[in-house]
């Protein structure tokens, strides 16, 4: 084979250049993203990953102007697996940030591992109260909320509407009790009964029968994931939808609506964000998400999108000095990015100060979508930050 001399010379020059480059090319941001990819809850992880990828698209596949490498990890909803995945990211992949995590118990286990290694943890869903209060940490940031805030908003709505005789239902575990506690912080009317069902329960017919026998005026429920789909269907099949107003938190969302459709209609939710929130960043996010994935994004994804933008803002502000986690954390406190939720600032416990809205599931053409009805809280702070003794 005859190789032209000029081509040979050019390739040699290119090769020598390539060997000379590594010092500069090493400057790369590595982000570990932990979520649940397998099992029944794996659907949530899929939405989060999609939003992370969209955020990277919007940033031109660069974070803070540097090349980025994402390492995704599956926690299988188990705290011990989450810790294992985080350790692998920190030791083997030498990540600069860890982000993600859906479940409070996984978060509580992973945060000490990441902060202990001197790296920043950006939580994009789980809102465990200790992390907002006495276990807050200079290297831990949340782009979501504290668990109690959403039910607090619903409590305020129902208090203001003068709803009395409320029947309360939640699964029997810590988050279930937290939700009801948050609700009761603002709702002071009569509660007919509080029912705690088994975590992961499938059939609610017995509870619905009890509920009807007490003739309440309204229902407040917290049933995340598959439990919500089952509860909404059975509430509808019992003929109660439309007869008894249903107020829920984390139950009706863009993941459960396609599964239950009509059974969600008319349901009330409170939330910090909704696909129909009017601001430029959100409209770009929702529009491009629909274009890329052919469906509406869900709040788990919206928070993860913000998580990547937050990391981007910090890397940019510190001019890519990834070794200095303290400086990165200081930059993160400014939250200098365009959040999908509109105005975004950090409280002293590294949790967002943000608005909460009342939403209703309504028919829009052939689809059923959540629509913002009013603002419940403006610049709402969680109720645990006074316990956080971190210097600001």
């Amino acid at each position, binding site marked *: 084979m005859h190789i032209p001399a000029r081509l040979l010379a050019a390739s040699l020059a290119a090769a020598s250049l390539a060997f000379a480059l590594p010092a500069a090319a090493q400057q790369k941001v590595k982000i570990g993203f932990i979520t649940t990819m397998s099992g029944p809850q794996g659907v949530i992880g899929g939405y989060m990953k999609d939003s992370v990828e969209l955020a990277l698209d919007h940033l031109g596949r660069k974070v803070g102007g540097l090349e980025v490498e994402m390492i995704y990890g599956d926690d299988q909803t188990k705290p011990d697996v989450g810790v294992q995945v985080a350790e692998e990211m920190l030791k083997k992949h030498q990540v600069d940030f860890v982000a993600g995590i859906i479940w409070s118990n996984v978060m509580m286990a992973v945060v000490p591992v990441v902060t202990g290694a001197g790296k920043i943890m950006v939580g994009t869903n789980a809102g465990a109260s200790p992390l907002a209060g006495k276990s807050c940490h200079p290297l831990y940031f949340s782009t979501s909320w504290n668990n109690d805030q959403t039910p607090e908003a619903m409590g305020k709505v129902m208090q203001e509407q003068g709803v009395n005789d409320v029947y309360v239902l939640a699964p029997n575990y810590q988050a279930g009790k937290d939700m009801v506690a948050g609700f009761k912080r603002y709702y002071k009317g009569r509660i007919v009964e509080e*029912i705690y069902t088994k975590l992961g329960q499938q059939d609610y017919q017995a*509870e619905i029968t009890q509920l009807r026998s007490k003739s309440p005026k309204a229902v407040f429920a917290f049933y995340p994931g*598959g439990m919500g789909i089952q509860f909404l269907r059975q509430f509808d099949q019992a003929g109660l939808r439309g007869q008894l107003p249903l107020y829920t938190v984390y139950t009706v969302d863009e993941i459960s609506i396609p599964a239950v459709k009509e059974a969600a209609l008319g349901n009330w939710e409170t939330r910090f964000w909704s696909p129909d929130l009017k601001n430029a960043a959100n409209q770009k996010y929702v529009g491009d998400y629909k274009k890329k994935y052919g469906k509406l994004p869900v709040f788990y994804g919206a928070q993860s999108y913000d998580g990547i933008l937050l990391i981007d803002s910090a890397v940019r502000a510190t001019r890519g000095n990834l070794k200095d986690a303290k400086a990165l954390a200081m930059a993160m406190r400014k939250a200098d990015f365009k959040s999908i939720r509109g105005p975004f600032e950090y409280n002293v416990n590294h949790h967002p100060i943000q608005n909460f809205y009342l939403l209703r599931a309504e028919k829009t053409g052939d689809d059923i979508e959540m629509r913002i009805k009013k603002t419940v809280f403006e610049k709402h702070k969680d109720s645990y930050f006074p316990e956080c003794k971190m210097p600001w």
Partner: protein
Amino acid sequence: MSWALVFEQSLNGLQYGVMLFLMAAGLTLVFGIMNLVNLAHGSLYMVGAYLAVAATQWTGSYLAGVTLGLLGTLLVGMLVEVVALRTLYERDHLDQVLATFGLILFFNELVAILWGRASLYTTLPSWLQGHIELFSGTRYPLYRLAVIGVGLAVAALLWYLVTRTRLGMLIRAGASNRTMVGALGVNIRLLYTVVFGFGAALAGLAGLMAGPIYSVQPGMGELILIQVFVVIVIGGIGSIRGALVGALIVGVVDTLGRAFLKPLLGYLISPPAAESAGPALASMLIYLLMAVVLALRPAGLFPARG
């Protein structure tokens, strides 16, 4: 606490028990006759639910969807028996548990690949929607009454099949002495395949009836499997009659416990204590029941052999 309420809750318990029975019947047959611990029974329940939803969408008819779903699960069950389980009959139970656990993972990932991880949309045909006024103030969903009807009809059919037909005789003979049945010239391999396919179809029936009330998603079978094992332990392994009685007991005890244990405890101990003990105790109730049955009758209520 009115009698109408107790009656309605008993109906709820009956409906739950009937679902458990459809699952337990197949599991206990396979356990009793083939001596096979099949953890993947829940996967067949899931396959039934998915196939029925897919077939309903494809044909546009609920009844056609249900029929195709049932036949499909029967075929999948027989295929699984021929391909994977045949080699396991002579192995010990640990190997069977490992292999059938592997099948659970396989089926969960397979449906996730085919249909995605999100819960599927399912709805009832209009003639099964709505509710019936049983007596004044007691409304009961029509669909749940239909579930009770189908479940009891299947139980009657099974009783006839097992006690009055030649196939049933072979099944009973197989349950008491497999070697002897084989020695008498019965094609035991074919019998196994038929029985397994049959058990799979029953699980599929439970799954496709559960589809519109529960959530059709990967892993849905494992949520019900533990209760089904409780049923066959209480009823006696290998006994259809035991499965029916065990399922109805578990269904009614679990439902009434969830509904009335907390108020009843309130009379005995202080209301705040009942508030926290009630739900915890209600979710343990069927396991406590199983422990009591095992202590008094270690082979279950209706042991198949001896």
